[in-house]
């Protein structure tokens, strides 16, 4: 539905002097200005340069199994509808009537035959078509071309292993190109634990909550912050792991190489672990025999299915800009919806192997609840730190001092190999170093591309 845009910056009203993003984000020297977190004007431009152009996570197929099912989601600040039409095709629409903009879908989820606008009664089919217009013939005659006034649909939408992604930009590359080599790592979240493709599902109940910080604090933290152990010291002392100790059973970390993986030209990153090729897997979940047995079997399966790749384990990561897979247990997917420069609405979805035994699902559900989200013992302290890191960066003086991203500056290889196993991405082995900021630099480098680029043709060029 191409209607020429008449937006403010064309129509005046916003300052037009270009912002010097290279000056604000100097990843080459490991310096990032605080301005990009707290400036109203930069935030406004992020909505247009990033959230109106990038591929964004919308939801999961398992949320809308039947024709007519819908779920409300967000793209940036805007409400969108994830809908499965009567023919079974999936769509993503802006949740706003074309007549006077009323929000046409007012429920979090459900099943419907149409979206009826409560203001004047225009109704839209589940495929977005404008089907009902009161007094259409008498009041509009020939004037109204219904075909031009359906719900605003995204320019591109793709379903990947159950997850649904969309973009408002028709010139954006296909989703898999957008994902690039990161696919291998995202699969660590989306594939079944035993290595079969896909096979994960969402367990009901999405955590949704508001936090007082810029959306990039959680995005960069999840992209690969191995360094904030101090934040979670209290949990390590108390012990909430599956075996009642520490934060988690560390089997994937012991006797493994710690890899910080990032794709600077894409902006995606993940923390990964590569098991030694010759070390067996330590037992885990020892307190819960059924769970322990399940994972043991899964690992065996995976080894057979994946061959050498079984050695690769995931952790937290971020798909640029604001979707964060957490590829180990508790296995979740987080979305950081921007709500102004100073606030973020967090969404948290919980994934399990669809065909795991009930006991396993229940065990992991409890683990998730005590670990993650606003009631999670671990992440409560993240919210606190992001809150006051943001707040303390807003001032006139504070803004003059860039953040420090020098850890592991200049290190890493894009030709990583281990006993013949090649892994994609700019990879830095931090087994000795414990941590680096390669992933964060990858994130902000791409952020700089997006903010400066006039179009996707420029963005693809990188």
């Amino acid at each position, binding site marked *: 539905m191409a209607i020429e845009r008449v937006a403010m910056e064309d129509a005046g009203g916003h300052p037009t002097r270009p912002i010097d993003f290279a000056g604000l984000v100097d990843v080459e020297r490991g310096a990032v200005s605080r301005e990009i977190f707290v400036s109203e004007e930069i935030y406004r431009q992020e909505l247009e340069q990033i959230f109106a152009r990038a591929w964004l996570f919308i939801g999961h197929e398992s949320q809308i199994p039947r024709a007519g099912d819908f779920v409300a989601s967000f793209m940036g600040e805007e409400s969108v509808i994830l809908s499965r039409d009567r023919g079974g095709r999936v769509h993503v629409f802006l949740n706003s009537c074309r007549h006077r903009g009323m929000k046409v879908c*007012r*429920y*979090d*989820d*459900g099943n419907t035959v149409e979206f009826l606008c409560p203001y004047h009664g225009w109704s839209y089919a589940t495929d977005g078509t404008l089907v009902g217009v009161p007094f259409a013939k008498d009041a509009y005659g020939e004037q109204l071309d219904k075909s031009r006034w359906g719900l605003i649909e995204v320019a591109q939408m793709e379903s990947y292993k159950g997850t649904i992604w969309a973009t408002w930009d028709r010139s954006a590359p296909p989703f898999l190109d957008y994902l690039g080599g990161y696919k291998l790592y995202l699969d660590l979240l989306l594939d079944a634990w035993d290595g079969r493709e896909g096979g994960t599902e969402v*367990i*009901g*109940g*999405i*955590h*949704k*909550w*508001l*936090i*007082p910080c810029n959306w990039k604090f959680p995005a960069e933290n999840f992209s690969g912050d191995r360094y904030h152990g101090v*934040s979670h*010291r*209290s*949990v390590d*002392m*108390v*012990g*909430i792991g599956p075996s009642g100790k520490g934060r988690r059973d560390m089997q994937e970390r012991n006797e493994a190489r710690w890899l910080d993986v990032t794709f600077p030209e894409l902006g995606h990153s993940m923390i990964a672990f590569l098991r030694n090729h010759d070390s067996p897997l330590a037992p885990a979940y020892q307190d819960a025999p059924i769970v322990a047995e399940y994972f043991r079997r899964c690992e065996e399966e995976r080894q057979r299915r994946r061959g050498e790749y079984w050695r690769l384990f995931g952790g937290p990561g971020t798909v640029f800009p604001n979707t964060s897979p957490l590829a180990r247990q508790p296995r979740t997917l987080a979305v950081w919806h921007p709500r102004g420069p100073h606030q973020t*609405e967090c969404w948290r979805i*919980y994934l399990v192997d669809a065909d795991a035994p009930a006991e396993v699902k*229940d065990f992991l*559900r*409890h683990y*998730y*609840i*005590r670990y993650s989200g*606003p*009631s999670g*013992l671990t*992440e*409560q*302290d993240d*919210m*606190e*730190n992001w*809150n*006051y890191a943001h707040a303390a960066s807003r001032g006139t003086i504070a803004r003059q001092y860039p953040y420090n991203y020098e850890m592991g500056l200049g290190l890493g290889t894009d030709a990583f190999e281990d006993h013949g196993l090649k892994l994609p991405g700019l990879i830095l082995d931090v087994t000795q170093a414990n941590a680096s900021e390669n992933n964060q630099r990858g994130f902000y480098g791409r952020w700089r591309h997006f903010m400066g680029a006039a179009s996707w043709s420029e963005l693809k060029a990188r």
Partner: protein
Amino acid sequence: MSVVPPELARLLLKEEVEDFLYREAELLDERRFEEWLELFTEDVRYWMPMRRNVPADEPEREFTREGRDVNWFDEGKDTLTRRVKQIRTGVHWAEQPPSRICHMVSNVQILAMTPDGASPTEVTVKSRFLLYRNRMETETDLLVGKREDLLRRVDGGWKIAHRKIVLDQSVLLAKNLTFFF
């Protein structure tokens, strides 16, 4: 000893239950968390569901389910105890400095007694709460809702065997839940 008339017995029970809930609030606001834990049975279920926006005629889909879905809380005594321990570590940053918290409890109703009559061993109690949190300089949260408790008589006193917390919010309007309801 004097025989207590049934009407008086009912009042005494009511007052006993109210006082129990007020003392609980006091223990929480005074940060006497270990004593607070003692108010729960060993097999307690502490459940706070999430809420969805659904049509008025589909109420069954509104709440996430205890024991099946992801909830705000779906706890036993073990994790409640760990939460208290975490606060006591002194390095639980989200509570350093501690939040200033006030639990206002109102509308206390006894919905059921078993056995019915003068001296029940279990009572179902509904109440409403307003939880006010203020911390650091100006950080403020206001959380309002209902609680439904199953109280069980244990050696002379009452303990909470089951608690359901219904927060009147869908998107949680607080950055975290480092306190108890």
